[in-house]
């Protein structure tokens, strides 16, 4: 029987379309428990490849024959080995090309909306890690917000639609993933904007992004308005694009809110977070469509794979926006914090330009899920 190669893009389509898939994850148990491919109609079986070296006969009755079967490992080598063994046993199975390494890096561009005068805004869904980044396009110019480490994806995409990248923004100093912002700005001669309160220790030149700053993309004035919104980090800044979209960074998500402790300052920043979510955001239009920098659970995806919802809806539905009592809010945010992302301190130092790990190390630092939210 055939061994089929499945790409991260093909798996992403199955996630978006809520298709069924049976995943045989052959990584060790801890790696599987920590982080796996999530899909609403996915089924899982975790058996480490090293328990299958003598053969797959014992697990054959656990592998369905009426469903697509995908074998997954860290880099792909072990999944190929197991796929070949299952194939010899008469099964049609696929393996994930590039393994979880490829899954962690894959970005799916989804158009989330039109802007005036033929402009558009795209969301790049990093499906394996839950990171969301954005490209705002207008009249041949593009801006990128919260880019991931995979800088080529954005430059290639911009080339493909005939747009020149002129401005690159990070809403805050990221601790969960390595920013590609500086690399893209250097490659394209674009301006790189960072909130100065988050950038006190950076080792490179940047344009300070301050409350009330307005940047125009294209000559049709798609305006990006900066809104100072501390709480996740002291410098966290949101953007209002074309008076229609609220890019909320790591402050507000669809089903949760940002956690304020990645630099170890939860107690200090919880007040800022409260002020941002309960005062500054309340003054904005309910009609704004919130585009966050993360999703935490696969249920937050819309049917087209995008992650977006009206601010007015979130004020009703998002638990984190509905805690009337300040003390209760404080307890919710600072108590029961999820574990900090893998290597978050090293990631921050990389984003500040203090250290420059090689690509292999950068990849390793980012492995795993993101843990930026409190629910």
């Amino acid at each position, binding site marked *: 029987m055939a061994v089929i190669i499945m790409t991260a893009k093909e798996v992403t389509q199955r996630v978006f379309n809520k298709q069924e898939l049976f995943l045989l994850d052959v990584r*060790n148990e801890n790696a599987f428990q920590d982080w796996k491919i999530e899909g609403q109609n996915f089924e899982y079986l975790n058996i480490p490849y090293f328990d299958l070296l003598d053969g797959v006969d014992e697990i054959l009755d656990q592998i369905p024959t009426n469903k697509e079967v995908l074998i997954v490992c860290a880099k792909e*080598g072990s999944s190929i080995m197991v796929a070949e063994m299952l194939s010899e046993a008469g099964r049609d199975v696929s393996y994930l090309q590039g393994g979880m390494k490829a899954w962690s890096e894959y970005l799916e561009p989804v158009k989330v909306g039109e802007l005036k005068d033929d402009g558009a805004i795209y969301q790049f869904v990093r499906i394996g890690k839950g990171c969301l980044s954005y490209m705002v396009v207008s009249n041949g110019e593009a801006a990128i917000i919260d880019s991931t480490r995979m800088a080529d994806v954005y430059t290639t995409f911009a080339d493909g639609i005939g747009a020149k990248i002129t401005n690159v923004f990070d809403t805050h100093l990221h601790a969960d993933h390595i920013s590609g912002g500086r690399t893209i700005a250097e490659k394209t001669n674009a301006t790189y904007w960072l909130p100065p309160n988050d950038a006190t220790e950076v080792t490179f030149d940047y344009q300070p992004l301050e409350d009330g700053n307005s940047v125009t993309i294209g000559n049709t004035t798609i305006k990006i308005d900066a809104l100072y919104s501390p709480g996740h980090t002291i410098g966290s800044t949101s953007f209002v694009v074309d008076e229609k979209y609220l890019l909320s960074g790591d402050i507000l998500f669809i089903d949760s809110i940002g956690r304020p402790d990645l630099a170890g300052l939860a107690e200090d920043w919880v007040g800022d977070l409260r002020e941002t979510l309960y005062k500054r955001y309340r003054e904005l239009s309910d009609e704004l469509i919130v585009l966050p920098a993360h999703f935490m659970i696969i249920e937050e995806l819309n049917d087209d794979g995008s992650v977006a919802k009206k601010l007015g809806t979130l004020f009703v539905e998002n638990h984190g926006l509905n805690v009337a009592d300040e003390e209760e809010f404080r307890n919710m945010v600072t108590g029961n914090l999820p574990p900090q992302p893998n290597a978050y301190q090293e990631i921050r130092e990389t984003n500040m330009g203090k250290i420059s790990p090689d690509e292999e190390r950068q990849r390793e630092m980012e492995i795993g899920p993101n843990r930026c939210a409190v629910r």
Partner: protein
Amino acid sequence: MNSDKVLDAKGLACPMPIVKTKKAINELQYGQVLEIHATDKGSKADLVAWSNSGGHELLQSTEENGVLKFWIKKG
């Protein structure tokens, strides 16, 4: 640390370090120690989990200049 056998798995990618380790351990007597040299970073977590599930004992592991070394006592 003393060992009864040394396995050079440097430059090999997953799953080969474990495949070779399993083979080499099979050739040892109970209580003997296998020393493994590997460069695949992922092999560390897998060797720990494999040793546990197979009843072997990981006595020590070191990392120097990108080379991971493991000492596993056959159980």
